[in-house]
């Protein structure tokens, strides 16, 4: 008898819910038919081929907007840095295009290797702790070219691939996808996107354009522009008191190894997934005081 009472008072509630639900279902069904938006199936396919990490490295808001843009304008192909050549190939297949090989994936290289003990400060900077603010002051640190170490690049990185180790931005190449956000974030343009044709790449880890004497006085590991490396191999060029590597014709030989050994301040180092630890600068003891 009790069950019957329960049922009698319960069924109108169920009926109301059911009719409301059905009503909404019908309305939504009609709406979804009437308000259907035609989407090019290629856009969805391209979106599937993309890494879907929404890094924004391509210059669009996210993967879906890049997919839409690339479907309309195929010349935007190859903008996806995390996906690299493989993704570009897939997109080209979807759009039935031919593309040339877009080469090695790009990865960032920090052109500075000065840690806390290597740097010189004329005064203590106690302003807003971001690189862009510190860079606005002439004397946030002695070197006007080197890494400030406040981590604007770290906060720009969506993949946790950057960290500040002893006041120096350090890339974790295992996590890096090559989106290039850090390169844009650095107010001193220290981070260069370089095509990594090998797992580990040689680099001149300094950006100081001061003359040798000034650089030496400010930093223990700065490039003094002596030109010893350029004498070994034409891979290196000296411009504005600074050695630079030509990545277009990057091909490490024995001479580059010698150049690396001969460098008096040891700014020529390997970076990459399994890079050997850089040697300490020859003449100064490693236990130098800060």
């Amino acid at each position, binding site marked *: 008898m009790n069950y019957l009472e329960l049922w009698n008072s319960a069924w*109108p*509630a169920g009926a*109301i*819910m059911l009719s*409301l*639900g059905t009503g*909404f279902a019908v*309305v*939504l069904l009609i*709406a*979804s038919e009437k*308000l*259907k*938006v035609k989407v090019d199936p290629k856009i969805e396919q391209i979106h599937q081929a993309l890494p879907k990490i929404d890094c924004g490295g391509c210059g669009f*808001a996210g993967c879906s*907007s890049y997919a839409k843009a690339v479907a309309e304008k195929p010349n935007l192909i190859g903008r996806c840095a995390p996906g690299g050549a493989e993704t570009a190939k897939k997109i080209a297949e979807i759009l039935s295009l031919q593309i040339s090989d877009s080469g090695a994936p790009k990865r960032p290289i920090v052109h500075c290797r000065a840690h806390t003990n290597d740097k010189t400060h004329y005064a203590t900077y106690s302003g*807003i702790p*971001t690189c862009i603010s510190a860079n606005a002051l002439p004397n946030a640190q002695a070197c006007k070219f080197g890494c400030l170490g406040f981590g604007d690049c770290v906060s720009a990185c969506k993949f946790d691939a950057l960290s500040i180790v002893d006041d120096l931005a350090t890339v974790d190449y295992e996590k890096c996808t090559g989106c290039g956000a850090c390169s844009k974030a650095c107010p001193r343009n220290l981070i260069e996107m370089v095509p990594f044709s090998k797992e580990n790449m040689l680099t001149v880890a300094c950006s100081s354009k001061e003359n040798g004497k000034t650089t030496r006085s400010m930093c223990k590991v700065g490039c003094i522009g002596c030109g010893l490396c350029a004498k070994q191999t034409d891979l290196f060029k000296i411009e504005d008191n600074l050695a630079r590597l030509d990545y277009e014709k990057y091909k490490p030989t024995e001479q580059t190894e010698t150049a690396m050994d001969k460098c008096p301040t040891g700014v020529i180092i390997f970076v990459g997934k399994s890079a050997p630890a850089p040697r300490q600068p020859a003449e100064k003891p490693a236990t130098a005081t800060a």
Partner: protein
Amino acid sequence: MNTLNILLMGFISIVIINNMVFTKFLGICPYLGVSGRIDMAFGMGMAVTFVVTLSGTLTWLIDHLILMGTPLEVTRYVCFILVIAGAVQLVEMYLRKFFPTLYESFGIFLPLITTNCAILGLCLFINLWGIENLLEAVVLSFGAGIGFCLAICIMAGIRENLNLADVPDCLKGAPITLITAGLLTLAFMGFAGMIK
């Protein structure tokens, strides 16, 4: 004239004095979660305004036309949730068709609104306060959305500046945000009693 007066008073009251976020502590999740940047906060606020106006009106109609006629007011909660979820879906489709740019800028916020308790709260409050007039219900719903938008935009503005402030390490992140929210609520408490 009297009706207009009541509507205006109701609107000001729900936006400032009985603000959903500040005095009822509803919708705190998006209020803290999406208030990182002011443009995103404004997008969220607008989306909520849109949905809350629609669902407030619809729930008032359903409440008065269907549920109150039959002794089924206990199912109010479930029905209201159904209405809100349906309304969000409808709004999403409508925006996608006619305002694609707006739809893109709302992005993920639109489906998230389904779980915004400020909206369900408002629908239930309209019933609790015994609003007998459809127009009043519409104005109150719209006001609640504007109030939420106001709250989240103020919060986002403060948090954008907070990023540049020298916050003690132990208070960084969530703690300072909650303290800010508390202070903001206190400030808005000053409006209490402005309308009797």
